[in-house]
């Protein structure tokens, strides 16, 4: 418990940034990172669920019996996912249609259950909130970076508020490969390798 509150927050941003360092929650990372907007939208939805499920699980940690804890965590997470699903359907309908079944699938995103089990069930509310917020923002950054990389190379444009902005002249030949399934795997692999090189230079 030597970590300060700031450290609880910032560890999610670099040292334990979810999809790269922990290699958790890969499926949505690969699937929705085809445009920048989708990637960031998914990141925000996950952050919302992560923060609130961390708060509730941390508040209930002394009441939930150890034997049924996983089931209890899943119900808490599923409840917040349903909240997000309904909110997105009401306010960001275009994004809701784009992300499709990946919104209900946040339930089985291993990051959420992982943080609940490894952190929120053992720590106080303030620490858990910061942990959730840090992890969520780290996840959003990672998704946004991967999505921007793929979209810029794949289509030569980047989306803000539903409008694609062309970055290159008309002579640019997009690598369509990047926005399709194989490109997703290869991009993530390359980013992981780049992170490994950066991490080594730092230490």
């Amino acid at each position, binding site marked *: 418990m030597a970590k300060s509150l700031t450290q609880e927050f910032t560890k999610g941003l670099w040292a334990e940034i979810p999809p790269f360092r922990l290699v958790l929650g890969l*499926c949505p990372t690969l699937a929705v990172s085809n445009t920048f907007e989708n990637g960031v939208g998914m990141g925000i939805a996950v952050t919302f669920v992560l923060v609130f499920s961390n708060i509730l699980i941390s508040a209930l940690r002394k009441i939930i019996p150890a034997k049924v804890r996983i089931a209890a965590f899943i119900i808490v997470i599923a409840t917040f996912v349903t909240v997000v699903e309904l909110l997105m359907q009401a306010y960001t309908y275009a994004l809701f249609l784009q992300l499709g079944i990946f919104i209900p699938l946040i339930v*089985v995103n291993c990051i959420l259950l992982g943080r609940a089990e490894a952190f929120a069930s053992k720590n106080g509310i303030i620490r858990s909130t910061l942990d959730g917020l840090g992890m969520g923002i780290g996840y959003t950054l990672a998704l946004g970076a991967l999505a921007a990389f793929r979209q810029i190379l794949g289509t030569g444009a980047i989306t803000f508020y539903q409008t694609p902005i062309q970055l290159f002249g008309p002579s640019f030949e997009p690598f369509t490969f990047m926005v399709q399934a194989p490109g997703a795997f290869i991009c993530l692999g390359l980013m992981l390798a780049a992170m490994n090189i950066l991490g080594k230079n730092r230490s």
Partner: protein
Amino acid sequence: MGDLVVLVISCILIKNILLAQYLGNCPFLGTSKKMETAVGMAMAVVFVLVLAGIITWVVERFVLIPFDLTYLRTIAFILVIAALVQFVEMFLKKSIPALYTGLGIFLPLITTNCAVLGVCLINIKEEYNFLEMLVVSFSYAAGFGLALVLFAGVRERILLARTPQPFQDTAIGLVTAGMLSLTFFAFKGWV
């Protein structure tokens, strides 16, 4: 009948759950380091996915729709799947111990495998009838198994090769998965 054959081919090869739809990637990378664990995971997924498909289809048709509760679908499905996995585990332990030891640790892990919940949701979204649902669930699971076993074979060879340091382990695994995905991509336009 012809439609069903088309469904089988498209679900196994063209819309392969791992490589084209990006579902179930955590166990894909986690359990593919050894052929033995890959086969165990593939079997467990086939078994649970078909059962979960049937049960969630029944829940949707006879509980959620008649009582106008479809907004609770996510919670209902995940609970059903979690309970089912637990039940299957107890049943196998009691009556088919050989299969239970074979599947081992992979059974409980399936609860958080997004391929299972994903396929159940796709079944509902595409409004398949019972027979189609059965065929689709089985084909997706078979596609998962096929991709996983192929990938595990490649990965066992990679262990023997000298990979550049930053690429070791997961990074090279992802790049390999990309190559495998590219080969499955070639089936596009087949149906």
